[in-house]
């Protein structure tokens, strides 16, 4: 039930009063926002407030139980999931991971790696990377295929404070260079406030029914 967005518009995604219910508990409810090309918006909230679920609803991985998500026609999305585990039995190099979902030319791979500051990484096995390197690599992977929208679920996990600021600066540069919008999930309210971008706060709902509005 995606009400399409006009081709001419700058709006990439529009969430209209969406809510997701599991059992008789609303994980989140009455959430409304727009993601505009070139802009970034933060999704903020404590553990369990429904950030990941909300992002998956925007991505179309979960159908909202209430409200609608409209996406721009032929929208391409670069996604970093919150949890990715690599099995040691699957041999996977950095370059193979970059082209996991989209084929890419060497130049494209090089510029994606450069955009996240990993141009000197070489081509080791993904399993041997540090946590911070892996997060940057996943960001580079999301850039392959020139996305209109980035959805980043806690891109700075396992990265220290300085690294987190740097990573968000990178995302900002990427947004300018690639001209894409971004939905960024973070725990870090300070950082979101300091950036001056819009943010959507989510609050954890009770484990019993939400009183009807």
């Amino acid at each position, binding site marked *: 039930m995606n009400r399409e967005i006009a081709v001419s518009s700058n709006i990439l995604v529009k969430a209209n009063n969406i809510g997701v219910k599991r059992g008789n508990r609303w994980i989140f409810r009455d959430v409304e926002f727009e993601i505009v090309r070139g802009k970034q918006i933060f999704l903020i909230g404590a553990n369990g407030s429904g950030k990941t679920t909300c992002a998956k609803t925007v991505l179309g991985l979960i159908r909202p139980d209430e409200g609608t998500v409209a996406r721009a026609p032929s929208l391409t999305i670069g*996604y970093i999931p919150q949890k*990715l585990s690599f099995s040691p*039995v699957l*041999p996977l190099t950095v370059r193979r991971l970059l082209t996991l979902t989209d084929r890419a030319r060497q130049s494209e791979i090089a510029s994606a790696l450069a955009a996240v500051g990993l141009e000197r990484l070489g081509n080791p096995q993904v399993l041997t990377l540090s946590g911070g390197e892996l997060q940057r690599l996943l960001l580079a992977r999301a850039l392959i295929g020139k996305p209109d929208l980035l*959805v980043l679920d806690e891109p700075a996990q396992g990265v220290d404070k300085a690294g987190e600021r740097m990573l968000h600066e990178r995302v900002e540069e990427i947004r300018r260079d690639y001209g894409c919008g971004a939905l960024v999930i973070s725990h870090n309210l300070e950082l979101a406030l300091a950036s001056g971008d819009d943010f959507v706060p989510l609050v954890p709902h009770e484990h019993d029914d939400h009183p009807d509005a």
Partner: protein
Amino acid sequence: MANWWVAHMLGDFLIRALLAGVGLALVAGPAGCFVVWRRLAYFGETIAHSALLGVALAILVGIDLSMGIFVSASLITLTIYCLGRVETLPSDTILGLLAHGGLALGLVVLSFLTSVRIDVEALLFGDILAVTRGDLVAIWAGGALALCVLAWIWRPLLAATVSADLAAVAGMKPERARLIFGILVAGVIAAAIKIVGVLLIVALLVIPAATVRRFVTGPEAMAVAAAVVGVASVLGGLLMSARLDTPSGPSIVVTALAIFALTRIPALAEKQ
């Protein structure tokens, strides 16, 4: 002249078994990689166990045994897929239920079919004498088709192995790839029944992949290497079976295991 010589030395039946085994290993190698990456060994066991049910059905309806196994294995795959979506039971519980349920049901149905005698041992451990010309054609035609299908779903299945969500966001339909792969495994198991037997088929999927893992850096290379090791295991095992008059399935698996062990020696020596 050369053909005559080879046929004379090896015997027609052995040549047929060798050709069938090679055809099988060429598909089992790459498919086995996904079995290992996606932790589907128990799924393979379930399909293999339920093969007896397929045999019983094939005899009841009067169709070819491998065809019967393929049909029942595909049905079991679909059942697993559907149960996985609606049931909250853990997947290994569902598999255990179907594996042993299928095996038991197969044995019960077979016991009613007193008019036909089937060689259960051959079903369990393989029987190279049983490979016919028709089987050979079926294995190579089916194998070629299976490799084409695997090439077609390779990228989505690999992406889904890393993350189903990533694959879905890229529009790769991971669920469809997963279901198609399940049916492909059902086909490999149905084709393998005469050569390796029900009890040991999963070894032909898992051991070659496990053997080559440490020697490769990418998934595609691993698939090719696993096919090579699989072919070597089948050739070695069948020749051993013909010479020593051992059952073919166990001979193939013992050969595969020997190759696995040999490749581990340098690593073990290094650790000393």
